[in-house]
Every structure is written in structure tokens, then in C-alpha cells.
């Protein structure tokens, strides 16, 4: 650890600088959340009833056990040897009750446990499935880590809620049962003993808001420390290469120490209740002993009743304690439920129309017909864009950063719905065809190759489960990836971990080409990688690209001049408007933005400084 005391504070943080102001506790009873939650519980209605029955029987037996003991002592043992038969029947009843207790216990515990498990998995599945169809604009603005905490933490909170609320029924019944039994055994003694309960309630009411603050801090410091850990895991390369270990360690140390501190403070709050409850229990027992004992002396109370009282008093505070814990669990669950159902309610704005048809795949044309689209209201990214790509044609789309190229390509796949105009793929409006067939008809290669954990084979085949090993190897050979694949330790069966960090960028690129080739779609949309790879790989990629585009309609967001020149047609976009179209020679002759940019010899139109663009556009206006 470096000593930083003599240095000024570093400009450094660990963990995300985004702060989440999420509610940890919600209302105790949120009708909306409960109603939504009920939908998921409905299929298990019968099991829930069975579990509740189990809980009730269990509680009943718990209540009955001291009564049987009282009966045995009062009516049998206290009456001496004559009552031996009675003792025997009491013992038999006792064993009968504990057998019931055993069965009910099994039923309640296993049903509730399994039920909670089912519910957890159902909820998570539903949310996960929803995230598969929810609009991309939602996914764009939501961090993966955040969704993961919904899928894990929040779902657990609801599971815990279900589990504990069924048992809470038991606690409630037990509490009422004890009150009833005490009062019916002896009203005077019962009322007197129960008089300690309000004291506990008052203490709890004062305690709760204070404790909650402490718990909240423990939770917050915990997630902040975990966020810092996550950063250390994901950014480890930068950490080691830039020698940030010590600075980060010190910062993490602060967070971890803060968390430790918060937990210790919270622990004080939890544990301070113990002596209070125990003292009150002692007090209640003392009341039974003094008052009850006096009544026994007066012969107005059976000794067995006094024994039973002593039993019940010892058990009395457990359900109260569980119920106050349940209160917090419920509040937490309501807040978590809110967050979960919020995600599930994010509208799926892209849905198949009733009667949507399947694209048959014979026509590979794409047409933009006066398309206007944007992500934010009143800020269109594409303005009245029209162009047509003929079946089998390769079109390069070029333009400076922010010109709308990527958005236009995403629209052809109907990632978003447009504001105005029509997009036709294969002659059909994209809104009139099924998304599934559109997805099979239009393949996409993204700029940054994304590989999944799994073998090379699985990555190339991806969702085309019908593809054989032969097909996969054929595709890999076609894009020139075969050679390096067979050089991997297990060839096509090599496991790729961690986003295939062991492969070079060029190699990953080739794998994603192979994946697109196996998908074998009529139309290919390709966002060419901006990064230059070495001339050798470049050559390979160009060849692979040629192979990939063969016989397909292609729209390429092109960065490489070779690709642009090789295209049948070039569409130049600027500020969401198509400003030039034509092949390379035509555009050069035209002398517009394309030719100016081209002459500046930039490797990619994407990285041209804005000043340059502004200068060129101005020049454009003047001519």
C-alpha cells in the first residue's frame, strides 16, 4: 500500500460513478405489486393452499404440545399412581401429535421451499424472456449490471417474501393461539402476562426507523464495494498495465472498511433487541411465578396451568420477532416487485401484426421510402430518406460519425419502428412480416464481433441448429478462418471464454463472418470494423467479405476504401439526409462531399474531425 498522506488527493475513484437512487423499502402492502405477483402464484394455487394447511396443522400441534403436557401433569401425575392409565393416554396423544407435527412440518417446509424455487425461476424466466423482445432503445439505455441485479437480487427478494409470508401465517396463528389459550386457561393471569406485549411493541416502533437507516447504509456500502470489485475484474488489463493496483487497492480499502463499519453499526441495532426481549420474557415469567404461584397457593389455579403458562411465555416472543422481521421483508419485496414489474411492463413496441406473413426469401431487395426516424422526440436522425437496393446489389453506406448510417441499417432489420415512411424488404413492408422470418432473411454482422462462451463450433453454428459440422467447417474455410481454428488446442471444439480474449481481433472478425455465412440469409447488413488490421489479415478479410457477399444483397457501412470502391453503389449520408448516390467514379466526377473526403485520404470517414467536415460542407455550400 502506498502512503498517500503526503500527496494531494488523487483524481481517482473505483466503481461506477453512476449512482442509483433506488428505493430499498417500499410500502408494506402494495396492491399493484401483490396483484401482479399473484399472476405468477396462480398456477400454484392448490399447492399454496396445501402449504397453508400444513402451516396451520403445524402451528396447531406446536400449540397443543404444552397443553398435552399440562394435561399429563395436572390430571395424571398430580393425582398420583391412580391416574397411571390417564398418563398413558396422554403420552399416546403426545406421540400422535408429534407425528402430525412431523408430517405437517415436512409438508410445509418442502412445499414452501419448492414453491418459492419455482416462483423464483418463473419470474426470472418471464423477465428474461421479456428482455428478449423489449425494444432495443430500452436496452440501449440500461446497463447490463442493472438488469442483472433485477434478474437476481430483486427476484430473490420476492422469493424470500413468498417463503416468509406463508410462515408468517403460522406465526400469526401461533400468536393468536397462545393469546387464546392463555386467556382461556386463566383470564386474570393471562391478561397480566400479556401486559408486557405493548411494551415490546412500543420499543419496536421507536427502534424500527433508526435500525432501518443503519441497514440501508450497510446495503448501500455493500453494493458500492461490489461495484468496485466488478471494475477490478472487468478492467484488470488497464489496472495492471497502468499500474493502478495500489491506488485502487487503497480506494477499495476505504469502501470495504466503510462497509464493515456500516455492518457493525447495523449489527448493534439487530442485537440490542435481544436483551430487551429477554428481559421482558423474564418479566412475564416472573409475573406468572409470583401471581400464578400466589393463585396456586390460594388453590384458585391448578399447578399444571402454571406450568403451561411458563411454557407458553417462553415461546411467546418468537412469533412477534418473526413478524417484525416479516414487516421489513414485505417492504423490501414491494420495492423489488416494483422494479421487476416495471421492467416487465416496458412496452414491446415491435410486435408481429396479426396476420403477419413470413418472408419467403426469394426477393432480396431493400427499399427506404421517405423514411423519417429518430430516438428522441423532435430530433430525427434520418430525414425523409429514400433509396432502393436491388436484389443482389452491394451498396456501401458512407458518411461522417452521426450521419445516421448505423440507424438506417438497424431499421432494415426493424430494430426500431420508424416515424414516417415505409421500409420494404423483399417487397414487403417490414411491419407486415413476422420478425422471425425477417431475422432469417436479413443477417447482420456487427462492428465489434461478439462471441459467446462455448466452443468455436457452437459460435459459428450459433442458432442454425440444423447446420452440420460439415457446413460449419465449410463456412470457416470460405472465410479463411479454418487454418487458425485447427491450430487451436482442440480445433473446432476449443472452448472460448471471456469473449474469446485469447483470439485476435481479426480472428474474431473472421469467426463472426463465418457465423453470418452459416446463417445464409438473403440480405446481409455489415458494419465494417473501423480498426485496421494488418495487411495480411486485411487481405483475408477482404476475400472473406467477397465470399460472404456473393449472390446476396448487401448493405455495408463501409470504412475501408477497398470495400467502398468495390461496391456497386455508394450512398453518402450526412446529418440524416442522403446527399449523394452513385458509384465511385460517378461520385468522384460529381465533386461533392464524397470526393472531397476521399481526396483527403482518410482511412475511414468515421474519424474525420468535425472541423474538417464543417469546412468541407461550407465549401460545398459555396460551390
Amino acid at each position, binding site marked *: 500500500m502506498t502512503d498517500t498522506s503526503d500527496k494531494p488527493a488523487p483524481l481517482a475513484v473505483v466503481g461506477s460513478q453512476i449512482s442509483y437512487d433506488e428505493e430499498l423499502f417500499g410500502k408494506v402492502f402494495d396492491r399493484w405489486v401483490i396483484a401482479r405477483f399473484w399472476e405468477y402464484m396462480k398456477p400454484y394455487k392448490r399447492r399454496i393452499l396445501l402449504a397453508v394447511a400444513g402451516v396451520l396443522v403445524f402451528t396447531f400441534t406446536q400449540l397443543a404440545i404444552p397443553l398435552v403436557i399440562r394435561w399429563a401433569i395436572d390430571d395424571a401425575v398430580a393425582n*398420583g399412581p391412580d391416574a397411571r392409565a390417564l398418563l398413558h393416554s396422554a*403420552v399416546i396423544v403426545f406421540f400422535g401429535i408429534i407425528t402430525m407435527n412431523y408430517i405437517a412440518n415436512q409438508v410445509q417446509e418442502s412445499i414452501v421451499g419448492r414453491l418459492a424455487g419455482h416462483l423464483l425461476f418463473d419470474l426470472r424466466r418471464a423477465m428474461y424472456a421479456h428482455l428478449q423482445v423489449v425494444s432495443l432503445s430500452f436496452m440501449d439505455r440500461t*446497463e447490463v449490471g442493472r438488469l442483472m441485479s433485477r434478474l437476481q437480487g430483486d427476484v430473490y427478494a420476492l422469493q424470500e417474501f413468498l417463503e416468509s409470508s406463508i410462515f408468517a401465517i403460522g406465526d400469526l396463528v401461533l400468536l393468536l393461539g397462545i393469546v387464546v389459550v392463555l386467556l382461556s386457561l386463566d383470564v386474570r393471569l393471562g391478561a397480566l402476562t400479556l401486559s408486557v406485549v405493548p411494551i415490546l411493541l412500543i420499543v419496536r416502533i421507536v427502534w424500527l426507523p433508526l435500525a432501518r437507516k443503519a441497514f440501508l447504509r450497510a446495503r448501500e456500502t455493500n453494493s458500492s464495494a461490489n461495484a468496485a470489485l466488478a471494475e477490478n475484474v472487468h478492467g484488470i488489463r488497464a489496472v495492471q498495465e497502468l499500474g493502478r493496483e495500489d491506488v485502487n487497492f487503497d480506494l477499495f480499502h476505504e469502501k470495504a472498511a466503510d462497509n464493515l463499519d456500516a455492518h457493525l453499526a447495523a449489527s448493534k441495532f439487530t442485537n440490542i433487541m435481544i*436483551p430487551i426481549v429477554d428481559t421482558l420474557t423474564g418479566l412475564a415469567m416472573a409475573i406468572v*411465578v409470583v401471581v400464578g*404461584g400466589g393463585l396456586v397457593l390460594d388453590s384458585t389455579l391448578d399447578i399444571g396451568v402454571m406450568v403451561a403458562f411458563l411454557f407458553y411465555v417462553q415461546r411467546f416472543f418468537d412469533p412477534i420477532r418473526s413478524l417484525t422481521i416479516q414487516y421489513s421483508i414485505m417492504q423490501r419485496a414491494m420495492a423489488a416487485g416494483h422494479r421487476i414489474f416495471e421492467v416487465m411492463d416496458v412496452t414491446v413496441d415491435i410486435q408481429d401484426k396479426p396476420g403477419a406473413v413470413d418472408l419467403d426469401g426469394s426477393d432480396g431487395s431493400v427499399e427506404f421510402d421517405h423514411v423519417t426516424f429518430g430516438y428522441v422526440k423532435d430530433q430525427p436522425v434520418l430525414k425523409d430518406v429514400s433509396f432502393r437496393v436491388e436484389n443482389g446489389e452491394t451498396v456501401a453506406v458512407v458518411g461522417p460519425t452521426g450521419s445516421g448510417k448505423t440507424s438506417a441499417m438497424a431499421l432494415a432489420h426493424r430494430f426500431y419502428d420508424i416515424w414516417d415512411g415505409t421500409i420494404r424488404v423483399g417487397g414487403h413492408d417490414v411491419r407486415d412480416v413476422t420478425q422471425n422470418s425477417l431475422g432469417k432473411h436479413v443477417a447482420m454482422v456487427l462492428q465489434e464481433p461478439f462471441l459467446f462462451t462455448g466452443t468455436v463450433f457452437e459460435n459459428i453454428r450459433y*442458432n442454425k441448429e440444423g447446420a452440420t459440422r460439415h457446413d460449419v467447417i465449410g463456412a470457416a474455410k470460405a472465410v479463411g478462418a479454418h487454418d487458425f481454428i485447427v491450430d487451436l488446442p482442440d480445433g473446432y471444439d476449443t472452448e472460448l471464454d471471456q469473449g474469446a480474449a485469447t483470439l485476435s481481433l481479426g480472428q474474431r472478425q473472421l469467426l463472426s463472418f463465418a457465423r453470418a455465412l452459416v446463417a445464409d440469409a438473403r440480405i446481409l447488413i455489415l458494419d465494417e470494423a473501423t480498426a485496421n488490421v494488418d495487411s495480411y489479415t486485411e487481405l483475408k478479410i477482404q476475400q472473406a467479405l467477397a465470399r460472404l457477399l456473393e449472390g446476396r444483397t448487401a448493405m455495408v457501412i463501409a470504412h475501408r476504401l477497398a470495400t467502398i470502391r468495390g461496391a456497386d453503389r455508394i450512398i453518402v449520408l450526412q446529418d440524416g439526409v442522403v446527399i449523394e448516390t452513385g458509384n465511385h467514379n460517378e461520385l468522384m466526377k460529381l465533386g461533392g462531399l464524397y470526393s472531397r473526403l476521399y481526396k483527403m485520404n482518410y482511412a475511414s470517414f468515421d474519424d474525420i474531425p468535425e472541423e474538417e467536415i464543417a469546412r468541407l460542407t461550407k465549401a460545398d455550400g459555396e460551390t
Partner: protein
Amino acid sequence: MHSIDTKDNKRLDLNFDGRYKIDVSKVDTGVLWRISEMAFQNRWRMAVAITATLLAGIFQIFVPQFLGQAVDEAQGLLGAAGEVASRASAEEALLTTALLLIGASTLRGFCTMMQNYQGEAVGQIIGYDLRMAYYRQLQRLSLSWHDKVHSGDLMTRGILDIEGVRLWVDTGILRFILLMTLLTGGAITLLQIDVVLGLLSLSFAPIVGLTASIARLKLRDTWLALQEELSSLTKVMEENLGGIRVVRAFASQAFELVRYDVISARALAMSHRRIALFVKSTTSMTFVYFCSMGLVLWVGGEKAMDGEITLGQLAECLAFMTILQMPVRQIGWMINSIARASTCGGRLFNVLDLEPSIADAPDAKPLEITEGVVRFENVDFAYPAVARDHRTLTGINLEIRPGKTVGIVGPPGSGKSTIAQLIARYYDITSGRITIDGQDVRDVTLESLRHEVSIVQQQPFLFTASVDHNVAYGDPWAGRSGIERSAAAAQLHNYIKKLPTGYGTLVGERGVSLSGGQRQRLSIARGVLVDSTVLIFDDSTAAVDAATEQRIRGAIQEIVKERAVVIIAHRLSSLMHADEIVFLDDGQIVERGSHDELLALGGRYRALYDLQSSDDAEEGA
């Protein structure tokens, strides 16, 4: 902070395969013992906790004694009711017992509070120690290890597994002590009352103990399997959400859901299995306990009828058993938490015990820079067999002097980047020597070495933080002017200035998205900000266009003029100005010299030059 001892049999991180396997036939005392050792490092806290636990147990045992006493006192006078004097004394006795009850309960409460608080504190401290050790260990382990291990798995260990260990210390150890105290104390008092009754009261203990230890092992295996399944599920979800565009682009939602369902079903089945095991063992333990109670009631009842024991003594036995009801129920949770702790602890120690394959030599000294000359002397290198990399270097001789630039070029897989990695010692060479100012990189501390060697990466990691934090990542003390100067040199300053909040703008996952070229320029700004002796550009301008690159080169000249610079690139225009250019093929230097010399040579470099300039020529046409 306490150090976590490393066990003797060293395992290098390169041999790590990510999975934690347990020997099913073996009892996992090793892991639990190690956790206990860590707990007992907090000597006084543990002393307080254990004393409090013992006292709490003893006071708790007093309670049924007093209760029994009260029953006897109340009943003993029944026969003689009406006698005023004895009634008064009886009331006095009852009052005394009542006060004793309150006293014992209160004391028990305070002791339990101390027990719980100190137990939790020790658990939290261990959690803290483990967290710090784990964080440090992740920083120490080699990058090739990190390349192999899934980040989701590392997070699971760092969060859930630490939690699993912590909870056991919290609850497991002390609860076990409490249970033992209650059993022993109870045994002593009950055996004094009546041997048969005492034995009957405790008859459940051996059966429960046996059930618990069998269940514990089964539960442990289930926990391990469950943990692995949940880890896979996390991986699948994380990748799906991270790669959502690929998923959508291939219309493979259905496929992804099937993939998820398969793992999810396995995890659910395992979770059910765990619950079944858990329920079976806890409920039967409670049942056995109740059976003992029934026997006490029966035999004790008979004995009381026969006058062998008093009614109060019978009540005491039963009251004592009531006290045990909670602890017996908790045995189930206890074994559950032991099972969890031993798997979690195992998974954690599995990482904590790894030895980084690259570490400081025992007598390593900080690197001393006198001049700043890097030298490769007959360097041979092969990646360790497990590193899944066949590339090698043979007979590399190279000198990089301050103020000079060396360019490295060659086909993919020729070993260009490896040279950069070797200077900063991310791998150890097989033979030969790499020195900086005459000091072998293996003899100096890694910290000092990596401080003097900075590598500008092709794909920089952006932290979810503001731009200035990101630029200053390697030197957080650089100050605003330094940050702006580097950003300006990397041709990024103008862009940043135009952002709504300038250098305070958030980048990273949810921040402003930067283009590939902008990200690389940020990486360059980061690299030149660090005041290192050696600066290596590892293909770090690949996404920057040639014109901007030229401007960057001009701008950073002033900043790097005293430093030794290595440029690894495939675009010749990036490195043709270098003082020396080496052409690498298959791990060997096949050509070297200045740009003009190499062109005149007419070899591989020339061929590459022609290939690239033919592109240019064509472009010009």
C-alpha cells in the same frame, strides 16, 4: 488486516481451470479449519464471544431450574395451605425465584447480545479480510489467467462465496458452542436429578448428530453443484444481455431461451434437491427431539407418580427440553451453513492460493533508471504449454534507447505484441536476458518495472467514470493541465471540450459512446500522461486514420522526447519514421534497419511496402 496464509503446495495460476472440485470421499475439514483459524485471529473478540456464549448457555440452563423451583414452591405448600407463616415464606420464596428469573433472563439476553454481536463482527471482519485479499489477488494474478477465467465466475466468488463463508462464522461456530454448552449443562443438571430421565432427555443428541453429519456431506455436494449451475446461468444471462444486438440480428431469441431453459431447469432441479435434503434432515431431527420429550413425559410421569422425583423436577426436565427446541431446529440451518461455507471457502481459497506465474523475485529491488535503455540479449521465448499459444520468439537482440523509436512490423502471429508483453514482464522468457539500464527485468520489482513501461492498448477499457478520470487512470495526480495536454496531444481535446460537461462527461457503458478511433486516442492520452521511461504503442492507432495519426505523432514528440518508444503497427506509415525498424517473422527478426535501408534491401519489408502503397496508388487514381 490479516494475511491469509498460502498453503505449501504451490499452484501456478496458469494451471487453473476455473472449477473447484471436491474430493467427495474426503471430509472437508481443511477448509473449515482454515476459516476457523481466521476467526481466531481476532483473539479478544472471539474470547468475548465464546465467554458470552458459555454464560448465555449457563444462564439459560438456570431458567428451567428456577421454574422447577417455583413449581415446587407453589405446590409444596399446597398440602399445608392455610398456615399463614408458611404462606408468607412461600410467597417470599416465589418472589425470590421471580427476581432470579428476571435476572437470569436479562443476563442471558445481554450475553446473547454480546455473543451475536461479536460473532457477527468476527464474521464481518473475516468477510472484509477475504474481500481485500481477493481484490489484491485478482490484481496479482497474471493477465493470461484473467483471459481464461470468466468474469461472472470471479464476481460470484467475490460476492456470494465470501458471503457464504462469513455467514458460517457469524452463526455456525458460536451456535455450535452454545448447543454444546446447553447439552453439557443440561446433562449435568438432569443427571443429578435422575439418571434415567437425564439420559432420556438427551437421547436425541446422538441420533441428531449422526443425521446432521450425514446430511452435511450430501448438502455440501448439492451446494457445490447448485453454485456451479447458478454461475453458468449468470454467464448465459450476462452474455445474452451484453450481446443483445447479435441475438436480435440473428433472430435467435427462441434459441437463446432454450439455452437458458436447459441450464435453468438443471439449477431448479438442484435447488429442489437441496431443499429436499434440507427438509428431510431438519424435520426428522425435530421429530427425534420430540420423541425424546415424549419419553421424558412418560417415564418422568411414572417416576413422579411413584414419588421418585418431584413434580417440579419433572417440570424442570421438560422446561429444559423446551429450551433445546430452538437450537435443535437450528442444527439444520447450521449444517446447511457449514455445507455452504465449505464449498464457498473451497472455491475462494482455490483462487487465493494460486501463485501468480509472474511475481517478484525474493530479493527484487526497485528498478533504477539511469539512462533508460532497454536491451534484448539473445532472447528466446515460448508460451507455457497451457497458455494455448504456440507463438515463440527466437534469438531476439534489440536495443531501445531513450529519445529513439523502434518500429516492429511483421505478419500476424509473428510475435510483435509478445515483445511488448515481455518488456513489461507479463511473461518470463525461456533464455537470454531483457534488461533496462543493465537490470534484468526478472530482478526488479514488478511495480517499479510496470511504472516505467507503459503500453498503449489497441482496445482500451473505458471505466464508467468521467473523461478526466479515464485519461488520468495511470497517473491520478497528473492535474488538470497534464490531462488536457495529453488529451490535446492525442487530438482529443477539441472533441472533449465540445461535450456538454467537457472533461466531466461520463464515458463507459452508460456514458457517451465514443467511436473506435476516439477510444484509441483516449488510450494514447492515458499512455503519454504516465511519466514512464519506455512507451509502447501496441497497434494503438489502428482505428485512427493516417492523417490524425500524423498529427498525434507531431504533438506527442515534445512529450515523449526523452523516452524510449516502441511502435508496433501493421500500417507502415505508422512506423516508417522510426530510427530502427525490425521485421519479425515467425518469432525471428528477419530484417532490420531504417525505412530507407529496408526499402533498398528489397526484401520482405519492401514487399509489404509495395503492397500497401499499391493500395494508395490505386486510391489516388
